[in-house]
């Protein structure tokens, strides 16, 4: 522990020398990413000193997060379609949604401890360090064991890509990596936007689970399964439909239950950009509203 604190101090000192060069947006982003990497690296070294425990936790994480797909497979023991979609097609939805959620959780998931930090007063410590608060909070307690979810998601996705009946055109192939990246960005924004609520409502930690974990569960299943109001809610409200539903309609050649213009199926990067803007704005507003107790 003493060692980690020492490393941390060293890391923040290195950062302090760079604080002057933060006027341009590009430099600010680079500084945030660098802070994140330094802190995440520090936590990784700390966790790796208990290697056996780490391996066990990674395996447990892999097993826990796989359960959702086990349920889907068990459902398909009793039917060959769900809402008009086949098992490999559900595998595509599951793989993309779980990958995006898993990567977002790996990168920024720790932000959900914000309420605890406000309650215990340790947020003040974060704010006086010469590194961006958001980057620090996202990298706090960074753990590679969270790789469990994206790893099993990739396995399901690879299987599904081999098993689905798709005529692979260039735009369809290109859309797969685009949706994986956009999806990760959208879920990251939802994590941060949800955590921001804790500035006003410290106990609301579990509320954001509805949108992150609940949202990912929603996206495991085809949109045809759900009421149209619910589908419309995740297109125009919290835009989770852009994570995988809308691009998947194009990739897998499925009819859109809402009958939206086809442009929506390509719009994931735009939706991701809007999410980042909204989350960033919410974060700034939250940080401005925060008042330390001074203790």
């Amino acid at each position, binding site marked *: 522990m003493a060692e980690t604190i020492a490393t941390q101090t060293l890391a923040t000192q290195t950062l302090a020398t760079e604080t002057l060069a933060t006027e341009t947006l590009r430099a600010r982003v680079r500084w945030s990413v660098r802070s994140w990497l330094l802190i995440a690296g520090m936590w990784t070294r700390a966790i790796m000193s208990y290697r056996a425990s780490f391996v066990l936790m990674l395996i*447990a994480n892999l097993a826990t997060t796989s359960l959702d797909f086990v349920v889907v497979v068990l459902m398909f023991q009793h039917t060959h379609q769900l809402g008009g979609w086949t098992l490999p097609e559900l595998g595509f939805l599951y793989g993309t949604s779980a990958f995006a959620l898993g990567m977002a959780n790996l990168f920024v998931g720790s932000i959900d401890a914000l309420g605890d930090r406000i309650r215990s007063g340790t947020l003040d410590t974060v704010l006086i360090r010469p590194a961006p608060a958001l980057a620090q909070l996202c990298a706090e307690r960074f753990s590679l064991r969270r790789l469990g979810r994206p790893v099993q998601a990739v396995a399901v996705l690879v299987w599904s890509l081999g098993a689905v009946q798709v005529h692979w055109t260039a735009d369809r192939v290109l859309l797969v990596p685009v949706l994986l990246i956009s999806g990760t960005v959208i879920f990251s924004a939802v994590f941060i936007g949800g955590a921001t609520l804790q500035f006003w409502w410290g106990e609301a930690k579990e509320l954001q689970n509805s949108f992150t974990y609940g949202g990912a569960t929603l996206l495991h299943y085809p949109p045809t399964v759900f009421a149209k109001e*619910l589908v419309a809610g995740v297109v125009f409200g919290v835009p989770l439909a852009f994570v995988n539903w809308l691009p998947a309609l194009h990739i897998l050649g499925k009819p859109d239950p809402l009958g939206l213009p086809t442009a929506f199926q390509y719009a994931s990067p735009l939706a991701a950009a809007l999410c980042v803007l909204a989350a960033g704005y919410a974060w700034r507003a939250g940080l401005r509203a925060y008042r330390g107790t001074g203790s």
Partner: protein
Amino acid sequence: MAAMPQIEPHWRDSWATARLYLAVAQGAFRRYSTYRAATFAGAFTNTVFGFILAYTFLALWQARPGLGGYDTSQAVTYIWISQSLLVTVAVWGGGFQDDVQERFRTGDIAVDLYRPVDFQGWWLATDLGRAGYHLLARGVVPTLAGVLVFHTHLPHSPYVWMAFLVSVLLAVVVSFGLRFLVSLTGFWLHDSEGIRSVMLVVAMFFSGMLLPISLFPGLLGRIAPVLPWAALIQVPTDVFLERRTGGALLTGLAFQIVWAVVLLAAGRAAQLLATRKVVVQGG
């Protein structure tokens, strides 16, 4: 109270003990009821999951009506009742487990052992108090939401509701028995976090939380109904859905009682072994 002086001394002791555990349970109930916003956030999350999963079950039962012996309204109700029970019977673990784990870390566990109250009984009482609060606070909202929006199956007879409540009580005791054993591994392993995460996977799957056990294929479908986790979600939910009536109701409750007794006895034995191991380092 007024009748107390006439009671035999032996019974007076039992009465005092019962009142003590009741006070402990009430304390736990009040403690959990302090966090209102957290409770609301939790109930909201259970409701959101209820909506999502209810639609997936609707789709499955649309493809296969009557699957597993559930009609469509029973299948949808299954989701809402299991979401309502998730935190009450602590399928994820937690409740007293978090407290005990923290006390292992701080060493306060030694204080618990020389209290003039039984260690297992104390924690069981707190967990029953917690479960009582969670049943009201995190059970009612999802159930109401489900009943309002979906075509659900509600029991008409008050006896079914009573049997359901008894079954939930037994489910909490079985769940306590399992979690108590997990917590006690802390005496040997110092940290039961790893075992807890493994138990979470097993409990989520074998309790019927994700899918009714009657839908499990082959060998899984044969062993899952006799494992203790079936007592957590599957049995109380089947009681609610009136799939267990008459003789089946009695065997269901008896199944829960047997596991409760076996697990509590195992916990008691483990506790005896553990207390011999503890070395209190004064100061």
